[in-house]
């Protein structure tokens, strides 16, 4: 009897029938399944403590863009292509500003209120166009934030071009860091969990074939409005959060960046998994910051690297890593 060795995939024997059901028999196998979610969480919780101040700020904006990207990804998976994440972001930002500036509410009230009211307000704004599909819906979402920006500029409403200043700050940068990182992780795990329930399944089905969903007796407009509210709340939270980080809210809250960068993040990271959108934000935002030293050619290099990502890994970085991780092999002894 000779002992020979052959290669075997690590997930062999763990996977049962589908990708999300596992039969775990040892700590090593549990580790294999747990590492992809536990490791990034651990890193994200330690990072705020070890980063220098400048990169702490980068982590904050990265997390914000990660949430915006997940929200975009979520809306897409329900069949709504939004080109206006800035709408949700800006509305949340201004609501927090108004609640602070005019009503003098404490920060622990302005942010939750702005989150929910922002989600609601944006939903109300977009309900009339929910029947539009694809590019028609996208155009409306693109136009709304630009329009609001101009209205604020022209009428001087909400502080006009000056914005609202002197808003309450967070007690410390660690409060900012841990709040936004926790929020990002919460959104990530909550939306992933939700999409695997029957409710999430029906939402995803709307994207694929809304007529078939309707003939299943399901009011897709009501479900889309719900999705819009959830996605809107996540972005409005970011807006409200950043208002207090900057202690200021102004027209830049409706800037195109907040609409475009989340889309780029989701595309680079890989759509449909939400972890991909997060990863995309964690690639693009720090990359953009790191290139800041280069000067004039920054945008060019940034655009080039974006193109490289999309051409080389059209499926998205996350899908690529996920596939490779599942293909990890080990040597096992076989008896002959």
């Amino acid at each position, binding site marked *: 009897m000779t002992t020979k060795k052959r290669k075997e995939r690590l997930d062999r024997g763990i996977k049962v*029938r*589908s990708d999300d059901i596992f039969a775990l028999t040892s700590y090593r196998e549990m580790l294999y399944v747990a590492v992809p979610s536990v490791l990034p969480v651990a890193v994200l919780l330690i990072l705020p403590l070890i980063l220098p101040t400048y990169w702490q700020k980068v982590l904050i904006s990265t997390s914000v863009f990660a949430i915006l990207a997940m929200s975009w990804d979520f809306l897409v998976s329900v069949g709504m292509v939004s080109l206006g994440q800035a709408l949700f972001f800006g509305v949340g930002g201004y609501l927090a500003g108004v609640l602070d500036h005019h009503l003098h509410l404490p920060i622990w009230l302005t942010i939750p209120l702005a989150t929910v009211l922002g989600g609601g307000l944006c939903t109300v704004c977009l309900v009339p166009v929910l029947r539009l599909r694809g590019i028609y819906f996208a155009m409306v979402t693109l136009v709304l934030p630009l329009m609001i920006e101009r209205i604020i500029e022209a009428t001087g409403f909400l502080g006009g071009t000056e914005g609202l200043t002197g808003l309450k700050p967070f007690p410390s940068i660690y409060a900012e860091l841990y709040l936004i990182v926790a929020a990002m992780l919460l959104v990530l795990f909550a939306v992933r969990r939700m999409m695997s329930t*029957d*409710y999430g*399944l*029906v939402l*995803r*089905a709307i994207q*694929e*074939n809304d*007529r*078939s*969903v*309707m*003939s*299943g*007796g*399901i*009011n*897709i407009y009501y479900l889309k409005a719900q999705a819009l509210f959830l996605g809107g709340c996540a972005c409005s939270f970011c807006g409200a959060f950043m208002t207090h980080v900057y202690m200021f809210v102004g027209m830049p809250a409706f800037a195109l960046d907040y609409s475009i960068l989340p889309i780029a993040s989701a595309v680079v990271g890989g759509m449909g998994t939400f972890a991909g959108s997060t990863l995309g934000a964690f690639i693009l935002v720090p990359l953009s910051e790191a290139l800041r030293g280069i000067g004039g050619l920054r945008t060019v290099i940034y655009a080039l690297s974006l193109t490289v990502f999309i051409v080389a890994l059209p499926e998205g970085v996350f899908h690529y890593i996920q596939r490779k991780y599942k293909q990890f092999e080990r040597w096992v002894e076989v008896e002959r």
Partner: protein
Amino acid sequence: MTSPSPHSEKSVLLSVRDLSKSFGGVKAVTGVSFDVREGELLGIIGPNGSGKTTLVNLITGFITPDSGEVVYRGRNITGLMPYRIARLGIARTFQMVRPFTALAAFKNLIVPLFSPRVKSLSGGRYGDRDAVAKDLLEEVGFERESSVTYKPAGSLPHGYLKRLELAKCLALRADLIILDELFSGLSIAELASIVPVIEKLVVEGKTVIMIEHRLRELFRIANRVVVLNFGTVIAEGIPSEVMQKDEVKQAYLGSED
């Protein structure tokens, strides 16, 4: 347009009255009227472009008619949203089969099982949707616990996709099931397994409307057929009689004359 028929003793479930719809200058459906009685299997036939699918879309609310009305169980349902019509118990299949490709076959049925109609029919509870879905697939001819049940719907063969479409109607517990060219593209063997499923539905008291091109198979199971041509009803009656009519021969089977 209602002619006396052997089924007249049964009550009318769906009544289409003088329905018209044009797209731009094209009159897709013009003044179509017919009744569907409870428990019957009505075939709707006609050459390509005669307005059959438009008619289905008009009945199920995907298109609003220019004039005329659709009455279901005595209630005017013209202009209602498709999901409202579905909730009243009218289910349909689509000519172009487009399943939820990424979902496992049985998970496709979660969508209609999620409908409030199913909840209210099950006494306010949804129950174990996965289990119900697997049972339904078995009813339409998926082998129990076979791998096809768990495969992504996008990878299923055509015959299974057609059965899946039918299962979606069953999942909604519809009283009126409209099958838009369910038989198209099916092999003789696949037909042989799906026809009994439809026959069983009728035995169980469901009402079925079948839009079909495969006349031989349809005539074997249909109680009555309506013949459309250029958007109007040119004949109506039991299959064997309808095919004897001159206008039908000319319009629809001219070459076989």
